[in-house]
Each structure stands twice: as structure tokens, then as C-alpha cells.
């Protein structure tokens, strides 16, 4: 199963943290720091895999990918296929890209709630829920509509929207 999904920037600041096995907040921070340390030391053009047994126990590994200023990290155990995880990450990023049309770090910072919604349509309980980015988009659009209809009083925020 997938143990967790982390998005952090190249300074190590978490932008999205979702663990599928409960971790107390201190532990989460410690894990984020350790992962950041590992990722910083990785050169360009190396593989996307790192074994992280020391942090998460035997046979747990992570895949990561850098997109501009962001690290995307999936942590998972040996019941998952490494490359399939990398593919799923790509689906996640492509979906974010469609949602925010050319996603950048700021989109994720200010819309972290939205990112949660998107992730929940892709991974559920540590399992792959949906792999088709267009299906995910459909579900997210539906949710957005519902939110708007129930939220007519919410003012729009120019400048942050539509990024």
C-alpha cells in the first residue's frame, strides 16, 4: 500500500502532507526532515527510487520527482510496483496541471485544500483509486460546482484565482 504522499518545496517546506497510516505530528515532521535530507543529496539524472527502511521499516521505499521548485514524494511498501507509483505521480501532477493550468508552487500553497480534494480522488486508503486524469477532473469539477452552489456568499479572490 501507499504509506504517504508528500509535496514539499526545495527548501524542505511541506506543501501537502498525507499519511495513510496515522503518524503523530512530531513524527511527521521528523520524517519530512529526513526525507528532505535524502532528496537534497540526490544528483540530477539519477533514479527516482530511494530505499527508506531506516525511516519506515523493512521494504519501504519512496519514489520522488522534482517539478520546478517542488518535490513530489510517494512512500509505499513492496506490495506496489515502483514504476507504477511513478506513473501515478505523473497522473497526479498532470491533473494538478489541468486544474490550475500550469501549476506552480503558489497554486499549491494557496489551494492546499483543493489539492487534498484532488488527491482523494486518486488515492484512497493507500490504494490506487483512479488512474485516469480525465476521470479525476470530472469528479473534481463536480465537487467544485457543489461547493460554489452551497457557498454563494464567498467572495472571489482576484489574483489567486485562475493561476
Amino acid at each position: 500500500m501507499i504509506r504517504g504522499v508528500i509535496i514539499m518545496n526545495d527548501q524542505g517546506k511541506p506543501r501537502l502532507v498525507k499519511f495513510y497510516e496515522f503518524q503523530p505530528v512530531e513524527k511527521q515532521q521528523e520524517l519530512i526532515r529526513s526525507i528532505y535530507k535524502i532528496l537534497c543529496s540526490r544528483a540530477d539524472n539519477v533514479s527516482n527510487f530511494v530505499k527508506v527502511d531506516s525511516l519506515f521499516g523493512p521494504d519501504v521505499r519512496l519514489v520522488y520527482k522534482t517539478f520546478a521548485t517542488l518535490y513530489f514524494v510517494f512512500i509505499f511498501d513492496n506490495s506496489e510496483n515502483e514504476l507504477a507509483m511513478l506513473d501515478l505521480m505523473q497522473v497526479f501532477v498532470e491533473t494538478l496541471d489541468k486544474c490550475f493550468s500550469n501549476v506552480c508552487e503558489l497554486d499549491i500553497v494557496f489551494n492546499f485544500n483543493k489539492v487534498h480534494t484532488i488527491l482523494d480522488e486518486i488515492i484512497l486508503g493507500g490504494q490506487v483509486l483512479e488512474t485516469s486524469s480525465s476521470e479525476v477532473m470530472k469528479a473534481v469539477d463536480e465537487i467544485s460546482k457543489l461547493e460554489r452552489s452551497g457557498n454563494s456568499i464567498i467572495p472571489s479572490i482576484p489574483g489567486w484565482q485562475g493561476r
Partner: protein
Amino acid sequence: MALSGMRGLSVFISDIRNCQNKEQERLRVDKELGKIRTRFKNEKGLTPYEKKKYVWKMLYIYMLGYDVDFGHMEAVSLISAPKYPEKQVGYIVTSSLLNENHDFLRLAINTVRNDIIGRNETFQCLALTLVGNIGGREFAESLAPDVQKLLISSSCRPLVRKKAALCLLRLYRKNPDVVNVDGWSDRMAQLLDERDLGVLTSSMSLLVALVSNNHEAYWSCLPKCVKILERLARNQDVPQEYTYYGIPSPWLQVKTMRALQYFPTIEDPNTRRSLFEVLQRILMGTDVVKNVNKNNASHAVLFEALALVMHLDAEKEMMSQCVALLGKFIAVREPNIRYLGLENMTRMLMVTDVQDIIKRHQAQIITSLKDPDISIRRRALDLLYGMCDVSNAKDIVEELLQYLSSADFAMREELSLKAAILAEKFAPDLSWYVDVILQLIDKAGDFVSDDIWFRVVQFVTNNEDLQPYAALKAREYLDKPAIHETMVKVSAYILGEYSHLLARRPGCSPKEIFNVIHEKLPTVSTSTIPILLSTYAKILMHTQPPDQELQKQIWAIFSKYESCIDAEIQQRAVEYQALSMKGAALMDVLAEMPKFPERQSSLLRKAEDAEADTAEQSAIKLRAQQQTSSALVLTDQRPANGSPSVSQLGPVKVPNMSNVNQSPAEQELTHANGALTVVDPQPPSTSSPDLLGDLLGPLAIEGPAGTAPQSDPRVASGLEGGANGEALAIAPIEEQNNTVQPIGDIAERFHALCLKDSGVLYEDPYIQIGIKADWRAHHGRVVLFLGNKNTAPLISVQALILPPAHLKMELSLVPETIPPRAQVQCPLEVINLQPSRDLAVLDFSYKFGTHVVNVKLRLPAVLNKFLQPISVSAEEFFPQWRSLSGPPLKLQEVVRGVRPMPLAEMANLFNSLQLMVCPGLDPNTNNLVASTTFYSERTRAMLCLIRIETDPADRTQLRMTIASGDPTLTFELKEFIKEHLISIPIPSRAPAPMPAPMPPQARPTSPPTASLDPGALLAGLL
């Protein structure tokens, strides 16, 4: 794109972003938390919108790493909000902040259930997501039927059903009983007919979870999985949105192949053929292309196909095709594929017999050790380690050594450990092994653990031929200008023991050796000084004729350290000083260290322990066990200094006896715990004040050594030390898995079988192992009866005989599976080579369902099985008795602490041990005379005579005299009889009331435990 923006939230986030440092951020967060807390306290004026905003802020703060210990109730209460936006926030934040055992979740259970069974699909989705993410046991019990209904409902949208599938998976993990196997297996098979690929992907994940626990119930799903793979492979009926970079849903392909790996085989030939066609197509049709994402996706499928081929144990031809593919992969530019190529090669090495084909890629794998990516370098190291055997050990180990100087620091420890293990396991000759280890210490001393140099000392001590060579090498290293402290330790130790063997070489006079070692003293830490002091004492002892000047110098050093603040150093200095004044007595005390008992390397054990418990990895273990270590084979088993000298036996024996008496308590302790744990007889080395004990302690980890090996060759196997046998009788490898409790007392069964030839050796709820033996002279034919007590087969059955050096044992093939209710007979041939009390051990394991059981059982191929009672007349007895005059052929000992018993009972005991009591030979009625014939290949038939003189006033002591034509036999027989007289081998005699079992760490680490270690014992004598 529109977003559900909240001004307050956005403002807060930008405030945080504008903070200059962590302190400012904390202040801002605290301010916000204070505000939220106040607003929540007075809920009256709080609009749902505000509540939602605050709850999001809490999640943001939580993500930043601050503990949010309030407001959980507010988050949970939003779940029951009537409107979607609030409800959604409630669900999302609750599933991120709370864990499954949180009390508040229980409060929400009803709302969640109402949302699931209600008609609103969007609410259903929210509820299913929460339960799928954090649902616990209670949710499982109350919600599983509703979730199942949603999953199979034809009126639900796929969006809901795929969530229901994963939600059910979570509930099943929390409580497997919620899925009724009989009712669900057909439903599951129907679900696999689903056309929607989203629902199918989720259902496949569910199937993987179900079959991993119980594949039997889901056989009907197997052909359907193959159908799905065919559909995807032919790209039939795959909608565009599920085609990822031109590949029909790689995830579903991967998951389906994963599910198939949980079925042990595919019996139906048609299904098997169809599957192999698909696999063949995947293996052949995948190429490395330019687009990285496409590459990743196609290779995800390809690697899963490889794993499935390995699992299905395809024909050799397909396997070699796989290896060829992997060989191609490890050389490609794409680092991910190189990484997985190496990893899968390692996996392949363990499950199948393709090592020779893999060896062809050795050069490329060695190149991968220099890959820019450390992840890949690690995989290469693992693979080299796995593929190493006698044929390529020299090349691989030398590569590793060479690589060591340039390797990253993060890898050096692992590298040196692996190099040391390979050198030990596959050494073509021992001098090469010594070379490797010394080079290791020289190049990477900081990363060489103590275990590694202890082990080399052990080998050198046990192999006389090696000693001059090792001493010479050690001497050479000391000439280097700067050497690592570990090198100082090991060379000082070796030169202390063996430098006299070099005496005639230039630069190797005692004085020169002393000087070169003493030069290092100012540079070493306090843990090394005691070793140096011992070395000085030994040099002094070996200097014949005495060199006055050297003696003065060394005495001066001793007296300097007599007031050292370190107790260990001080004690040694004082003792060596006093001893060295005694002249000749020094010779005895500082004699060469005796041989170490032969035992499994603690390094190998460490390596094995480090390997987790997966099927593949237990395959490595097995392979490691099957490959006999040439290093160990080379080891000579003869006693080090000829026959044991009696004077040394005295003091050594005493602690051993106290140990014998103590062992039932220890044994009780083990059993009282209920679990099958091994009580480690070693004192924790950190608390041991004795440095030699420290040096030798870790070496002794594998087995308690009863006494000093010199006086007690029986510990040579190192697997079982008589008195402590009970504690070790079952030594599970994976203790956490080993929850199967044996029926009956294993030790009791063993002792019973020592006195009779058939009976039950071991029994648990699944298996019974019986034994029937027939002993003739020095031959034995033992039949093991392995009986499966169940209606399901026992699988992965493995029986391995760990014979002691004096027994030649051959076990016929043990089948891997024992059919239900069947009994399998496995003959075991035994030949006794020479007298010894070492025990053979049967390492037995099997799998039943999820239980992996591994037990180590002592086999009753004990000394008395090779005895045949013989009655002798007075005319025959006395001339023999007189001709065997004195040690080592005739040994006498006063035994104390004897279990009191009347003479008649003792006579019975002797007869049951095949020692025939000959009444009337001894005029004194308090005495007992017995005779027997011992058979072994070396001694042939050998007459043994025994005389016991008891004291009617004190039945706890007696004098025992044993005579035979072979010194080892005399000694072994004496010890053997003694064991039966003092110990209480039959636990049915209730042991004295036991004190409440103490936790093992509470046990004193004092003499009785320490005395198990020969090193500590000897050190105690020094």
C-alpha cells in the same frame, strides 16, 4: 479555474509566507490558534462558513508541524452539516487530523452510516473516503454490509463503486471477518467482469488483499484475471482515458499480475497457456523509448511480468530470456530501469536456478558499483553479494575491497560487512581470508565492526597452520606509519599469541615486537590498553631465556598502570605484575588461548537477521545454509594442545557445575514466558567489566559454551551446550511469526528418546515428528516420521540436519509439501566417527496458512546410542583395569552435587544408559562397577570400564573412575555419566518451587551467566 477560496485562509497563508523566520511563524501560528480557540469556545455566533475556514486553517497549521490539540470536535461536527461545502471540509480535515482510535470518530459513526446508505451520491463518496482512509474496527463491524451493497449495486455510479471497493478493503484489513468468504467469493468473481476500468482497478486491489490471505476461496477469480490481462494486452475495449501514453491501463495490468502471484500455481493448461502468451508478448514487445513517462509505464508492466514469470517457475528457456532482458536493462541509460534491472536480478537469483546465466553479467554489475546513483550502487552491492559463490568469491571480494577506498561513507559499513562475510563463506584458503580482513581493517577501520576482527582471531586461533602467517602479516602492518586502532588491537592480540613462531625472522625478536607494539600505546584508547598489557605479558612469558632488560621495561609499564583509573586496566596490570614474579606459574596461566568452539559466525547471523521475512529472502537463508562454508570446513576439530591436561580441568569445572544446577531455573524461565524465546546466556557486553570477555563475548553469541573448549570438546558444535540445551531446544528464527505452541515438553521428549529408540520428538497443532531408530555398532539408521495432522497441506517443509563434527549424517530428501493427514518417512543415516557428546540438531520448518514455524530440535543421536553393554568377569576386568593406569586413559574425579539416589536406582540408570553393571566385582557394597563397549569409526570397538565409589553418609558426592583405551573416549564418557548423575534430565520430577519468573534483563549478569563463556572464564583465571 475557480477555487473554493476563503479570504481569511488566504490571508493567513500569506502571513505565514511572509514570516522571516521560524520564530515569527510560531508567533503567527500561536496567535491564530488563540483566535480559533476563542471563537470555538463561543459557538453561538459562529457561521458554518467561519467554522469551515477555521478548520482548514487548523489543517494548514497541522501540516506546518504544529500540534493542534483542540477543535477536533468542531471538525467532526462539520460532518453532519447539511450543506456540501461544510460537510466536505469536515470529512477531509477529520480524516487528516484524527487517527482511527479517536473517541470523536465514534460519535460520527451514525452520521457516516446515514451518508453511506442515503441517496446522495456525493455524500456517499465523502463518507466512503473517510472510512477508507481512517475507518477502524468499529466502522468495519457496523458498515461493512452497507459498503458491500454499494460495491455490487448496479444502480450506483462507478465513481461510488470504486470507492466502495477500496473502503471495503480497508474494513477487511481491520477485521477480516466482515467479508464472509463463502458468500463473497462468487461476488468477487462477478466484479471482475466489470467493464468500467476504474471500478475494475479498485476491485483488483481488493482481490489482491483477499487472495493474499486465502487464495483457496478465490480460485474462480484466476481465469478471470487472465481474461482481463488478455483484454488489456490486446487493447480490446479500453477507453481512451484509460490509455496512458499508449499503454492500456498499466496499473490494472500490474495489479492483475500481482494478484496472480498469490496463487501458488495455475493448474488449468488452457489458462496457463493463455497467460504465458500474454507474458511472452509483454517480454518481447517492450522497448526502451525516448519518452520517459512511456518508458516508465511500459516497464512497470514488464517488471511485473518478470516477477510473475519467476513466480510461475516457467521453463528454463523463458527464464534465460528474462535474464537476458535484465542483462540488457542493467546497461541502459535510463537510471530507473538500471535500478530495477539490478533489483530484479537479485530477486531472480534467489528464487530460481539461473545463477550461471547471471554470472555472465558480472562485469556489468561490477561497473554498476561505480554508478553515479547511490540507490543503484546499493542494488549492485546486494546483487554481487547474492551471486557470490566459491567460483567468483575472489574476484568479487577483491572488487569490493578496491571499491572500499572510494565508496561513500554511507556505504562503507555495509560494504565491509558484506566483504567480510563473503570472504568467510567462500574463502578458497584461510590465508586469503586473513589477507582480506586485514586489508579491510587497514582501508576502512572505522567501519569494521568488532565482530569482524573477533572472527579473524577465532579462525587464527583454531587453525595452527594459519598462525605463523597471520603473525607475519600482523607484524608487517605494524610497520606502516599510521594504522587504525582496530589494526593495533588485532595485531597486538595475534602477536601476543603467536609472535614466538616468528622468532627467527629479522625484526621479530620479542624485544622488537614489543617495541613496535609499544610505540602505538600512546595513540590508543583505554579499550585497547588491556589488550596491549596481555600482549606484553605473553611476550614476556615467551622470551626464553628471559631478557632482563625487556622484563624491566614491561614491569615498569605494569607498575605504571597499577594505579590506572580504569578498573580493567588496573586489574590486569596488578595481576600480570604479580603473576610474572612467579616465574614458571606464568607459563601455565598465560598459555596459548584454547580453541574456540565452532559456531556459526555472528556476522552471518547478523546478515541473516537483517533480512526480512519474505519468501524470497528466506530463500537466501536456505541457500546460505546449504552452501557449506569452506572456511568452516577447513577448521580442524582436534583439541588444541593435545589431550586435555588434568591440572587445567579443576578450576574450570567449578563454574560449569553451578551452571548445570542453575539451568533448570533458566529453562523454567523460558517456558514460563509462554512464548518460544531464547534466553540469551550472554551478559550484555556493555555491562561486562571484563575486556577479554568483551573480546570473546560476541563470538560466543551463537551458543552457550559449557566450559572451556580445551576441557570440553563437546561444545565444539557450538549449537547446543548440554546444560543449556533446554533453553535452546527451540530457537525460532522469526520469533514474531512463531506463535505455534508445541504440544508437550520438547526437552522431556528429547530426554526420553535418549533412553529409548522410538517415540515422538516434536508435536504441535499441525505436525507430529516421530522417530524410530536402530543402532548397530557405530552405525545408526533413524527414520523421521513427519505427520501432517490437518486437512490442509503443510507447505515449504524444510528439514536440515546440523551435524556435529563427529557424526556423519545423511538425510534423504524431505518433500516440500506434506499432503493432508499424510505421514512421510525420511530415513537418516548416521555414522559415528569418534567419541563426543556434541549433539546433532534438526532445523525444521514449515508453513501452515500464515504460520511460519521453525524449530531446532536436538536429535537423540547421543553417546549412549553407540554403546553396547558387555558383561565382564573378574578375570577379564582386573588385568584391564590395571593396565590402563592413570591419565589420560584412566580419569578419576570427585563429583559433588550429585542427585541423591539409592544405589539400586543408580544401577538402573546405568543399565538404561547401556552401561552394564557387574555386581560382585567390587567387594565394597557401596561401590558400583560397570562395563560397556563403545563403537566409532576411529576407535572401533573399545572396552570401557567404570567404577563409582559412593559415600553412604553423603549421597550428594561420589568418586568416579573411568578407563578406556582412548583418552578422548575416557574423558567424554566421564563427562557424559556425570551429566546424568548431576543434572535432572527428566523435568517430570517437579523442580523446586520456582521464584516468580524474572524478566531476562533483571537476571544478574554475574558469574553463573558469565561463566558460560570460555573467554570470560579464562579471563577470570588470568
